[in-house]
């Protein structure tokens, strides 16, 4: 199909919207409510364009392109109406730029500059609205909402439906539903799909900044598998570029004393989980299927919606809790540092990890193992705020006692990655005594059946004479698809976010299907390049693991427990500031 945009000849395919074709051709049209993951709602009216011969302007996000159209994206009519719509939106979005972690990437502000918007043409009308905080993970600030509904739809797509738009007209407002049978699972997909950061992680960066200035504290950082392949996007680096080396340098610049890779912790998780799986295989009374539990949003989901499944969850702790445990015990001992002085900050693609870190059973001696959790977005914000030229940082390395983990750890960030990591180790353990010629023993390193972004994947393997059926779910909304068939499987990986952690609620905005693909490919590329690709072959990790076993600390450092929950902790407050944290 041939058409013209701003007098430039462009080509499009049937079924594409004007916005899609414009963006493919590098023509910029501002938009707010549009998100490729979601249905077109055409509610913000900012992406309007003019089509020659049509009486009215159309929203480019919802209008399909047609042969021969002549489109103008910045005509005087378009500019004038876009300006007034933006001015009206600014008046329903209380500017809290001073404490907003999206301030350097604010779509409202950049559109304001381009269209000479008078941002205070109308007085703010939502200043007195409430902020809803879900535990310590996610918040929805009614004073900043522009009524696009994306959070509601993102939550519905997760199979949760915890949010609703109450009221109508200017009185409508996003609220948690009154239904007591629904609860927030802290996945943060609402924050990932909010165009104006009204739905946002509960920022921990102010407390981290404060800790970094405290001379009595030794502040250490650790970062998750999925962060390295997405952080670069915040600084204009290509999608999927591995920024491990730069991240270590950024830690140093920000004042962290030591830094670590959570991949090391992922290897501990795989080791613990693989051993549990084998123990279940040997136990005739074992509960099947075993499911992963490293995704804290899935854990929150299971604890509320399906407490009957809690015995299925592996008791292996999640990677950042494992590595934090190693830092505050084994590492502190070797370094002769008082663990009470250590402040562990996790940089993760996740909002639910904030909640996980605060769970009392994941502490040691009454103190949390992970002190603060920052999302990828918050970390990017700190780098920008401190004017660090991330793009041009040199590569450096973390503390030498722990390493960057095996290839199996790298793929933890992608859906299917935890399963594949566990299978690599389980297969090695079980096939160890078998004749190498026994083709029935699946010694594969790569299990490609469980890769890819499909909502549900499954595979059947032969390991040491046993048939093992595995399934992988990503996107909490896909869980209901297999609920009735659960008993068919031995092992199921569940990640609440679409694509797994690489599509996590704390990842850079935008995160779309195409971007998730790039990030996944990058993680599998890292795996290929790692010298060690099976978790249990990571020697430094094994040394730690053996130390834990020798000291009989496994229940305190390797395992966790779950309990039925009555729902998410909800706090609704009027007028609040992120800096309130500092007062406590």
């Amino acid at each position, binding site marked *: 199909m041939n058409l013209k945009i701003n007098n430039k000849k462009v080509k499009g395919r049937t079924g594409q919207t004007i916005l899609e074709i414009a963006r493919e051709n590098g023509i910029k049209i501002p938009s707010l409510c549009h998100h490729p993951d979601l249905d077109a709602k055409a509610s913000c009216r900012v992406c309007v364009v003019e089509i020659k011969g049509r009486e009215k302007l159309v*929203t480019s996000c919802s209008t399909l392109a047609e042969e021969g159209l002549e489109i103008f994206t910045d005509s005087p009519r378009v500019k004038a109406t876009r300006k007034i719509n933006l001015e009206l939106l600014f008046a329903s979005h209380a500017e809290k730029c001073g404490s907003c972690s999206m301030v350097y990437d604010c779509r409202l502000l950049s559109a304001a500059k381009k269209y000479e918007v008078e941002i205070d043409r109308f007085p703010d009308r939502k200043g007195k609205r409430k902020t809803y905080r879900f535990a310590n993970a996610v918040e929805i600030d009614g004073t900043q909402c522009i*009524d696009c509904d994306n959070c509601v739809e993102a939550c519905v797509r997760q199979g949760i439906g915890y949010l609703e738009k109450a009221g*109508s007209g200017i009185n409508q407002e996003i609220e948690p539903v009154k239904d007591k049978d629904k609860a927030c699972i802290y996945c943060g997909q609402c924050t990932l799909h909010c165009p104006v950061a009204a739905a946002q992680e509960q920022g921990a960066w102010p407390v981290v900044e404060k800790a970094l200035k405290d001379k009595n504290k030794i502040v250490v950082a650790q970062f998750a598998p999925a962060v390295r392949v997405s952080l670069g996007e915040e600084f204009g680096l290509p999608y999927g570029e591995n920024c491990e080396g730069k991240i270590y340098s950024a830690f140093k610049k920000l004042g962290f004393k030591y830094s670590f890779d959570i991949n090391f912790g992922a290897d501990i998780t795989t080791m613990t989980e693989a051993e549990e799986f084998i123990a279940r295989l040997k136990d005739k009374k074992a509960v099947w299927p075993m499911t992963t539990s490293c995704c804290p949003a899935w854990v929150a989901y299971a604890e509320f919606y399906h407490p009957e499944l809690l015995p299925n969850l592996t008791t292996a702790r999640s990677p950042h809790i494992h590595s934090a445990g190693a830092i505050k015990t084994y590492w502190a001992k070797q370094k002769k540092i008082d663990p009470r002085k250590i402040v562990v900050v996790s940089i993760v693609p996740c909002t639910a990890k904030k909640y996980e870190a605060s769970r009392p059973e994941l502490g040691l001696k009454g103190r949390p193992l992970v002190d603060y959790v920052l999302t990828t977005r918050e970390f990017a914000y700190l780098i920008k705020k401190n004017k660090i030229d991330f793009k041009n940082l040199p590569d450096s390395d973390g503390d030498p006692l722990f390493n960057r983990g095996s290839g199996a750890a790298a793929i933890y960030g992608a859906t299917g990655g935890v399963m594949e990591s566990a299978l690599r180790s389980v297969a090695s353990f079980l096939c160890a005594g078998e004749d190498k010629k026994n083709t029935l023993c699946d010694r594969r390193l790569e299990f490609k059946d469980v890769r890819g972004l499909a909502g549900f994947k499954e595979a059947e393997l032969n390991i040491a004479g046993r048939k093992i059926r595995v399934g992988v779910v990503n996107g909490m909304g896909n869980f209901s698809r297999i609920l009735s068939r659960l008993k068919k499987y031995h092992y199921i990986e569940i990640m609440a976010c679409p694509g797994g952690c690489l599509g996590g609620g704390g990842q850079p905005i935008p995160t779309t299907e195409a971007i998730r693909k790039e990030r996944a490919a990058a993680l599998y590329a890292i795996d290929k390049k790692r010298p060690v690709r099976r978790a249990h072959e990571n020697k430094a990790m094994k040394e730690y693991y053996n130390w834990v076993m020798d000291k009989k600390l496994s229940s305190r450092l390797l395992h966790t427990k779950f309990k039925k929950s009555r729902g998410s902790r909800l706090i609704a407050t009027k007028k609040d500031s992120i800096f309130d944290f500092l007062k406590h």
Partner: protein
Amino acid sequence: MVKEKDIITKIATAGLVGRGGASYPTARKWAAVKSALKNKKQGYIIVNAAEGEPGVKKDGYILKHHAVGLFDGIYLADRFLGSKKIKKVYLFLNHKYYQEYGPGLKKALAVKKYRTLKEKIEFFIKPEKLTYISGEETALLNLIEGKKVEPRLKPPYPTEHGLFGHPTLINNPETFYDVSLVAAGRYEGERFYTLGGALKRRGVYALPANLSIEEVLRRTGNYPDRPFFVSVGGEASGEVFAADQLMGPVEGAGLIMVYDLEKTDEKKLFRYWLNFYKEQSCGHCTICREGTYRLLEMINKRDNFHGDGKGRKKFDWDLFWEIVAGLEETSFCALGASLPIPLRSYWKNIVKRKKAKLS
């Protein structure tokens, strides 16, 4: 009895158009639903009789006086579209109409001819709190489906993808009544007019559809003897004309609202329109939700609405019309886009002429 094939030709020849306000050719709409149903197992009919447009009273008039004609029209639509495929007929009414005319309607249905139709008909009562927008046909679909009452993106149109995703015929009661007249060979090109405002003989009249505004006023004995102006179509969305501009036809839902030129308070009238739209906006799109609110806020301020700004802050007419242009250009649905009609036409036909006379 008319055959199914013939009815559509008759409707087309008679030139019937929708009487909900948009005047879409009836034959084209019926044919679209019929053709969409070819490959589908089921469809729906909705009679939109909730009279969302303020001032218009003809839906109630038809429910009261022409229940048989209405059901005849629905019966013909049901047969034309394929009675087996039409799973349900929703009769969408407001609460007052249901209370007043419900018994009469049920009585009219209790005849042998409508035996199967009667089982399909469901009276769907508009919740009292619901707004203007629920009369918009896609918002009405959401209402019946139990979703948030706001308009849907078009296309797809309800004729193909309507209630619960099935082809759906949505018409005004007047349209069904007209069809019954066409089928009986009694259609004489008339339509219903509602006359209201500063008049002696307010009410609903059936008169030829091609009359001018002035002729309707004169034929009903309503031509005012005082200086006046009119709003035509609907009280909220109608176009405003001065007394010497009445040669055009009566558009939209057929309302002629007469205002006393000297006694009408301009600011109050603006406030009525703006408040109506602010209250009725569903909130889906920016310009309608925020724009109507800001326009009203401007009017409600004590800024000098009429004068030159002496003493009080001058009214910012530039900003006012900027928002109005935004409504015209970027409203999601016809609700927001119709507010500019009364505002602009009143400004052009009444205010500007007044000023021209004064100078």
